């Protein structure tokens, strides 16, 4: 089989699909906006549910990319494409052009900008951080407050920018619950004396081994799970974070002083992903992610023949799901190229 496929995005989805396509004899150009591949995984320290180091995923992706059929282009942002006859022409923001027989979009997601939930004080109060900030603290193996002290009381705020009508995101980002459980355990291991609270609306533990991890967090690590959405955070004179939340199971309002607050930022459609389709030809869902042709049988297929999707550009996905989704995309791309020639 012959043909040339352009993969937009060098994260988990893009690289996995590129590797599989290359081994089927297809020429692949992977276009990555950053200087190196890996996407969001590079910023993560370890992964749920088996707490594997994320560097293992990066190593796996590097191996996938080692193939003569693959050309990696880095530092290029795609801003628009058009289709003439059966071939695609993609333009990058630096003015370069790429040509291919099919396009696989694997542009992934953006983390919700937590500044937008100003009531939680990210960017205003020193000790309000995001889940991504916490991962980089894990990499440094030291969790410290801005004043250099170790936190004693730590709170995780679930659903920041997810299931939130005010942010305009009605959907569940799916990974934040389990990420909070994983990070809470990680914190307890680093600071065994600390008290850790998770403020959640619902615990959505719908993945393999998630529920077990959630149980372990409560029984083995003594993490407190409080059902209620944090309404607002303020800073008192001692610099503690006064967190207002309603314990909806006990039916009473709470005000808890925290040393450190971790915001579980949700996932949103990637802004750079939107730029690929600058002329708005691709269908989008109400969640603003790319809408596949069919959520059951065509989750990798777009409304334009020859344009395919892989990974979190269509909906929030974890790494396991992203890899499966990328493999599914490969089969659709191969079918398309076979019938075309």
């Amino acid at each position, binding site marked *: 089989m012959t043909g040339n496929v352009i993969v937009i995005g060098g994260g988990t989805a893009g690289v996995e699909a590129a590797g599989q396509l290359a081994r089927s004899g297809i020429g692949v150009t992977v276009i990555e906006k950053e200087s190196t591949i890996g996407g969001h995984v590079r910023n993560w320290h370890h992964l749920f549910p088996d707490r594997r180091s994320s560097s293992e995923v990066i190593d796996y992706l590097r191996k996938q990319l080692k193939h003569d059929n693959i050309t990696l282009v880095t530092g290029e942002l795609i801003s628009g494409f058009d289709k003439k006859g059966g071939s695609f022409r993609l333009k990058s923001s630096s003015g370069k052009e790429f040509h291919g027989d099919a396009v696989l979009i694997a542009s992934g997601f953006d983390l919700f900008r937590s500044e*937008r939930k*100003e*009531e939680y*004080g990210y960017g*205003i*109060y020193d000790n309000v951080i995001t889940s991504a900030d916490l991962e980089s603290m894990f990499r440094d193996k030291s969790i410290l407050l801005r004043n250099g002290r170790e936190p004693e009381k730590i709170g995780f705020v679930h659903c920041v920018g997810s299931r939130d*009508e*005010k*942010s*305009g995101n*009605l959907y569940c980002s799916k990974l934040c619950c389990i990420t909070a459980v994983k990070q809470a355990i990680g914190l307890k291991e680093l600071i065994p004396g600390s008290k850790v609270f998770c403020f959640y609306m619902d615990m959505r533990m719908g993945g393999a081994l998630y529920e077990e991890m959630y149980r372990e967090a409560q029984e083995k690590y003594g993490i407190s799970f409080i059902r209620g959405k944090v*309404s*607002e*955070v*303020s*800073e008192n*004179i001692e610099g503690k974070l006064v967190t*207002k939340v309603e314990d909806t199971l006990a039916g*009473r*309002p709470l*005000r808890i002083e925290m040393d450190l607050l971790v915001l579980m930022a949700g996932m949103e459609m990637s802004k750079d992903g939107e730029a690929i389709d600058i002329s708005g030809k691709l269908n989008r869902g*109400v969640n603003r992610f790319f809408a596949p042709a069919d959520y059951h049988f065509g989750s990798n297929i777009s409304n334009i023949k020859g344009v395919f999707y892989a990974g979190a550009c269509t909906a929030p996905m974890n790494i396991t799901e992203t890899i499966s989704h990328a493999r599914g995309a490969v089969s659709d791309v191969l079918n398309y190229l076979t019938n075309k020639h």
Partner: protein
Amino acid sequence: MHFDPFIIPFNIGLYFILIYVVGRSIIWFRNLSRPDKLRLQRGFFGMAFGQSLKEIFLESLIHRKILKTNLRLGYMHMSLAFGWFLLILFGTIEADIFGSHHLNPPHMAIFFRFFNPDHGKTAFENGYAFLMDLVLAFILSGLILAIIKRFSSKSVGMKKTTRLKHLDKIALASLWLIFPSRLLAESLTSGAYGTGSFLTGTLGAWFNSFLPAKQAAYPFWWLYSLSLGTFFVLLPLTRYMHIPTELFLIFMRNSGIRTGDKAGTYSEVEVHSCSSCGICIDACQMSFSAGINNIQSAYLLKAIRKDEDTSGIVFNCLMCGRCDVKCPVGIELTSIRMIQRRAAGAGNGIHNIWHGYLRTNPVPVTAKQPASKPSYDFLPARKPEKADILYFAGCMTHLTPSIKNSMVKILDASGMKWSFMDEDGGVCCGRPLMLAGNDREARELINFNSRLIWKSGAHTLVTSCPICYKVFRESYYLDVEVLHHTQFIKQLIEDETVKMNYLNKRVTYHSPCELGRNSGVYDEPKEVLRHVADLEKTGYDDGNSLCCGGSLANLRLQSPDKHKIASFAAAALSAPAPDYIATACPLCKKTISAETKIRVADIAEIVAESIVKPVANGMKKQRIPNPIETSKV
């Protein structure tokens, strides 16, 4: 004997409508409250009467405000209203001068040409006929515009026009028939007798060349009379009721009567004064940003006139007040919507046609009893703190801590003795409940907050949220001066209490609906901004400012539509590429900042940034409840 059977329909219609309007105005007057009756009586013998006559001439006949907003639409309204008025006036004079008697019954003027077909032979008569033809041509040009507008609203510069119901259509058809049938009837009669001027004379001569004009004229005189009669009889059931009602409205308004918060004669008169011109639809952001075209004020008023259930319309509104500002009749649309919200949009529905004529009952207020007595036990116990200035941040400001922190910095820098009323949380000001029509529940919150304010002994209450500002000012019985923080900062600048640096930043200002249009505070925020930065115009300034879309008042709007309204507003504010988009409302800040990359900041934040000697970092922690008192308070 000047009689012919064809005048009967016209006379029935005319006397019916005259008796109806007199009867209805008596009922309206009786339903007025005592103070309003006195106002009206005083108005009748005072300045208001003259003012009203002037306004009736300018607005009801010339349609000056519509002309200002939209020239073509204004011309259409003017030609029909003013033209018709002139036709009646000149017609009456004509009948009086040239007719066989003086002081004729009205049909003599209307059907003058039929009864005096020979008229128009002398030069003077001919000149007068020319004048009459000119007026008729003026009306017909407006009518042509009206017909074009009905089928293509864009051609008269309107994006949308109102949709019609059956009775409206019949009334509209009869209205449209009046002037063409007059034209044909007069032309044919003139043709038969060789009279008439440039319009009726020319047309008549041409008809006479191939038609038995005298015989052909008769059915058109019938049609003319019938269409007038039908129009008059249907008038009370349709939007054309605005023709007589608007006169009452203008007079009542000039006498000092306002809508208030209860349904009554004035709101009833306002509801019937709407001509459904559609200007409110074009002004509405729900229409031009989100494509929602069935909830605008014209439709609300129409539904109230028909006594329909308005619950679907009444709560689906941002209450931004843009239509209020643009309404050429000056109907207090937001107040009427609030009245309707208190009644939860209930309507009785018109079951038979007679009900429509007889309906004068104002909408009943059916506020529900709260389910249980509210409790505020969850709030931390608070010692009443004595202070001169009381600062109330409000719920939304607590959700935007950067505004709250900036205000703390400004208040500290002012050196005044101030106290933070809801520092550890407080009770809502009550306005969101009021906007939902739950006044009684809101009163509980108002009482709770009022007690706190009284106990503080403060003389000034400063609030950061325009929503709170409006309710503190209008619905609380307080003897403190209520200031929005922009007004307070303005005072600090004037008194030179706090010195500020010029920031050398370009800013655009988003005037919040609750502060600007709904409370009339336009200038202070802009003056504060000009003091510290370079203020750019956006084309949506003051009364024409946009709603951010985050309004608490809309209980129906879905988030994708809110998003559309917000992104339109954000784009307009970002257009001059400012360094900051300034606003004066925490809710606007939140809504707009989600839609633009440019930094959106409250005026308090910008001012806090510009304060010359920033409070030392340690100061905040040492802040004692009673800072040093200055003589300047």
